[in-house]
């Protein structure tokens, strides 16, 4: 049993995790007959709290309530992992990348998030504000404008050979590369 927990605790390699994520598509279709996607959950939350005067939220959200339960499950998975088989403290990042991070002023590479940015006590700093509020706003606005996010377009859409999803995913990477290479270094030094 301990051996098994050790095996589960170690970070899972991509060739295990990737296919398992892909299998979420047939699992969702077979068990509850729903299309894989995460970001629409934000829209359903708005509809559920009754923003009906806005036409975009005026529909029967209960038909999509599975989406809210699905993301509740993702939330609960965090509890479970932290309690039963937490990840090792530090991720094995490439040496080059750690050096680059240090040059940008990110010295703590433990955990999942850089502690110098993702902490309540740093929220008043301009770089945390831009990253947390700006980044959040853009993924919300962008995913609805694009019609999906990494799960709905990149995983589900590309699995269906959808041209619209391919265009969206190209957009994801153009936007991501621009920010990660040229904008983030400026913001991290604020």
């Amino acid at each position: 049993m301990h051996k098994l927990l050790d095996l589960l605790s170690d970070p899972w390699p991509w060739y295990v995790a990737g296919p398992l994520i892909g299998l979420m598509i047939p699992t969702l279709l077979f068990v509850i007959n729903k299309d894989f996607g995460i970001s629409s959950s934000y829209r359903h939350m708005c509809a559920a709290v009754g923003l009906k005067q806005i036409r975009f939220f005026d529909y029967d959200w209960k038909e999509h309530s599975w989406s809210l339960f699905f993301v509740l499950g993702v939330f609960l998975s965090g509890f479970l992992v932290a309690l039963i088989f937490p990840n090792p403290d530090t991720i094995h990042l490439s040496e080059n990348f750690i050096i680059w991070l240090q040059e940008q002023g990110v010295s703590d590479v433990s955990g999942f998030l850089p502690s110098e940015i993702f902490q309540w006590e740093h929220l008043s700093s301009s770089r945390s504000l831009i990253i947390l509020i700006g980044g959040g706003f853009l993924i919300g606005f962008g995913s609805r404008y694009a019609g999906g996010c990494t799960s709905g377009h990149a995983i589900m859409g590309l699995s269906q050979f959808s041209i619209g999803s391919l265009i969206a995913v190209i957009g994801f990477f153009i936007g991501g590369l621009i920010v990660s290479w040229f904008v983030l270094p400026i913001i991290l030094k604020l």
Partner: protein
Amino acid sequence: MKSIKAIFIGILFGIILIKSEAVSWFRIQEMFHFESFHMYGIIGSAIITGAISLLVIKKTKMRSLTGDKINPQPQPLKKFSNFIGGILFGFGWALLGACPGPLYGLLGLGYSIILVPICSAILGVVCYALVRDKLPH
């Protein structure tokens, strides 16, 4: 019953996202800097597995657990909004180092600060809803 099933599948999905480190800010930035194959391997093999699964479902005319026809909806093609919305999403993805699924998982892991980007994302959706009719699609 459907809600319990959805929660259960969500838990499975979340465990995979966390154990594969796909929820990590560092992993996402490392991906955009082409310093590791890890995230490309995850996304690529997920798409291949998903595509094969969908082809099998189609070929075998598989039915769902409740006996209904399985008929996944194709994503509508809206070139302009797919592309521009995609770029905006990409900006946010790289800024935050996380996309919507991992945000929920990180919150569950105890990173309570993630409430800030989640609320902000919801605000982004509300703003989109307000300006939607004025935007080209």
